[in-house]
């Protein structure tokens, strides 16, 4: 049966080639959109690792030279600021950090590990001790920063599970050193604690390794490397539930009196989250819309082509009916031929798509996401061609043998 259908398809190779080509390109378009959709959906379902409710972001613009001479005074101002914030009854806790969740800036570090020969990239942050309460971080093992880290000879760091897995596999990371082995001036970066997975860039971002360093906001004249305290680039504050935007004005006025030359901008984390969502979803929606319209167009075109084909094959169908083929068999024949043409197009399409990860073109998608996307796209195209084939094949079954043989 299938062999016979293949022969029928081969007999009309010109027109079938064009249909195959169309299906091939449709598959590529569908796949391109689906792979992103699956990737983002997959990311979205994973744990975020922090609480953003009732947390406000305060961007700090210092507008000062990066010279070290201002540093002690800037650290002093930062400490005063945080102390002033904690005096408010509306504020539960306040912390300073380097790159806040959902903010644009990223601080990335790369460590070359000789052991595996691989470079491991991870996000970094330097925060004050209160950040754990502000963001509701959950410790998995070890401890959070505390007074015991004051004056330590190492740089204390808390890492997330993903980074622990990347660096140490299944071993317990607590107590280990994560400093770059290839660095010239080595300062021990000792892992003191492990947190759950943490995704700074939000729900749609990929889970990547994350290391949080301690920033104690104190000036150390003889500090080596990064142990030096740094004025935070932003402050995060946890406000009591029900605090309104009216409080922002009060807050701003207070901060301005503590640091006259600095500028601040306040934004609830929920709002920043919303704009990050928009950045991810608007392009996705635009591409989805275009791809959707392309599919409708392909579907209509395919229906038209199949319809015309059936019309042209009236004689053939009539003869088959006259020789005793049932309507059901005609129906099956038309759909079967379409199925073969579709399969050829999809086969080539899949072969092409499989090349991308081999060429390292779509590195962002994990093998699971990639495979799932291929299957979803295959399913969608089969669905599309089947729906397009229904009406034309129904038409073919309606051909009356007598009428068809009447020709010539």
């Amino acid at each position, binding site marked *: 049966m299938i062999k016979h259908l293949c022969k029928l398809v081969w007999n009309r190779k010109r027109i079938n080639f064009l249909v195959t080509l169309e299906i091939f390109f449709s598959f590529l378009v569908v796949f391109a959109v689906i792979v992103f959709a699956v990737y983002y959906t997959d990311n979205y379902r994973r744990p975020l690792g922090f609480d953003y409710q009732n947390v406000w972001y305060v961007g700090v613009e210092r507008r000062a030279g990066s010279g070290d001479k201002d540093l002690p005074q800037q650290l002093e101002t930062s400490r005063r600021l945080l102390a002033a914030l904690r005096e408010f009854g509306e504020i539960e806790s306040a912390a300073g950090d380097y790159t806040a969740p959902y903010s644009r800036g990223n601080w990335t570090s790369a460590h070359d590990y000789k052991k595996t020969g691989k470079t491991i990239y991870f996000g970094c942050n330097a925060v004050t001790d209160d950040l754990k309460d502000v963001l509701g971080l959950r410790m998995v093992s070890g401890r959070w920063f505390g007074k015991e880290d004051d004056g330590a000879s190492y740089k204390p760091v808390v890492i997330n599970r993903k980074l622990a897995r990347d660096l140490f596999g299944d071993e317990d990371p607590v107590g280990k050193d994560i400093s770059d082995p290839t660095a010239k001036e080595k300062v021990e970066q000792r892992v003191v604690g492990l947190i759950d997975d943490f995704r700074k860039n939000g729900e749609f971002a990929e889970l990547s390794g994350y290391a949080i360093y301690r920033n104690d906001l104190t000036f150390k004249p003889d500090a080596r490397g990064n142990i030096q305290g740094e004025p935070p680039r932003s402050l995060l504050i946890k406000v009591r539930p029900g605090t309104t935007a009216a409080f922002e004005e009060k807050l701003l006025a207070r901060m301005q009196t503590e640091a006259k030359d600095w500028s601040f901008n306040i934004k609830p984390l929920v709002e920043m989250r919303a704009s990050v969502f928009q950045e991810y979803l*608007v392009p996705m929606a635009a591409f989805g819309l275009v791809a959707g319209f392309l599919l409708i167009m392909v579907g209509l075109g395919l229906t038209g*082509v199949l319809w015309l084909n059936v019309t042209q094959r009236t004689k053939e169908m009539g003869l088959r009916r006259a020789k005793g083929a049932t309507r059901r068999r005609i129906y099956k024949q038309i759909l079967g031929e379409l199925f073969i043409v579709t399969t050829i197009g999809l086969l080539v399409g899949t072969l092409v798509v499989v090349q991308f990860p081999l060429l390292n073109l779509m590195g962002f998608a994990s093998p699971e996401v990639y495979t799932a996307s291929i299957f979803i796209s295959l399913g969608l195209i089969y669905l599309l061609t089947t729906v397009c084939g229904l009406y034309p094949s129904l038409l073919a079954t309606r051909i009356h043998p007598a009428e068809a043989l009447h020709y010539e």
Partner: protein
Amino acid sequence: MLKNYLKIAFKVFLRRKFFTFISLFAISFTLVVLMVAVAFLDHIFGKQSPENKQERTLGVYFLEMKGADGRWNGTGGYRFFDRHTRNLPGVEKMSLFTETERVYSYKGGEKIESYIKRADGVFWEILEFNFLEGGPYTEDDEKNENYVAVINEATRRKFFGDEPALGKTIEVDGQRFRVVGVVANVPYLRQVPFADIWVPISTTKTKTYRDELMGDFIAIYQARSSADFPAIKEEFQARLKQVEFPDPKRWNQMSGAIETHFEFFARMMTPQALRFGSQPRESLANRLIAAIIIATLLFMLLPTINLININVSRIMERASEIGVRKAFGASSWTLVGQFIVENVMLTLLGGAVGFAISRFALQFITGSGWFPYAEFHLNHRIFLGGFILAVFFGLLSGVYPAWKMSRLHPVQALKGVMQGGVR
């Protein structure tokens, strides 16, 4: 003869309305997407107020500084522009301004978010803003540290309702400014002029910016004509070599380019290795244009195959006509010509529909507020672009079916009349 072709084409379109609908749908949809894309490009790069002298304006949008501390990529600093890039030959005017920054004001317990740009007085001479009230501040305001501001229409509404704002004060980021002018809104995507509030650079809270080689600043240069560009670019490279470094141990080398905004954009789109460093070769902008053309062709591929498919399948419909015309001596070329004319006519019809839909699509995007103050219009440039695309699309999708049709053997074709069958 053309009239006859058109008449026949029209009859054919009406014969099977479903197929004509499919073709029109495909064509108009394709053109809607392309025209919206063209409207976007035009919105970002096309010439529009206040950048009326765009074709003879260059800018320095991105610099790199190197030294023992590594590389610092970003916008330039005031000191670099002020000390080293004034009086370039062929440059009439030079303006310095910062990137926009988000600032907040509070009015009656409500928060007002605005973008502020700190710019010198020449800014208002190079860029021709449309003033609704008052006028720009001047170089004297910049020199004397006057706390004056020009605001846009939207900001006036937020602060003062729709009442005149001239002479009133606004408080932004803890500083008070007197409004001297109100301008029409400038779209967010026009990064050079865009802001909600413009104030003199000298009103910055601390004056450390004056000592920085790298900082928040962008400079634009109005040349006498674009013919001077090569000379200006050459001189700029020479100036980069003469930069005095306050602390040569940390930083001792600067590189970058003076370029049009489109060239800058093209540079940012290319891989990192080519992005920085000295004056890029002219080809980067051309490369971006080539990339845009390739992307357009790729997008048009699927609709084209779709249209070819339908057209080829419809050959049989025309068999009788082709047979008769061939039997009476029409050459293949004549027939090819006829079918291509028909297809181009269909695409132009689809183009007209697409144009109407694009209008609604662009109105929708304008109204959505995704791009602050953006107004996407269809202008003659976009219309011309759409028209060229439609004709091109018609040719592309018409050639193969036309060639196939013209190849039908007259005898077969005449026989085909009977095969036409079930209508």
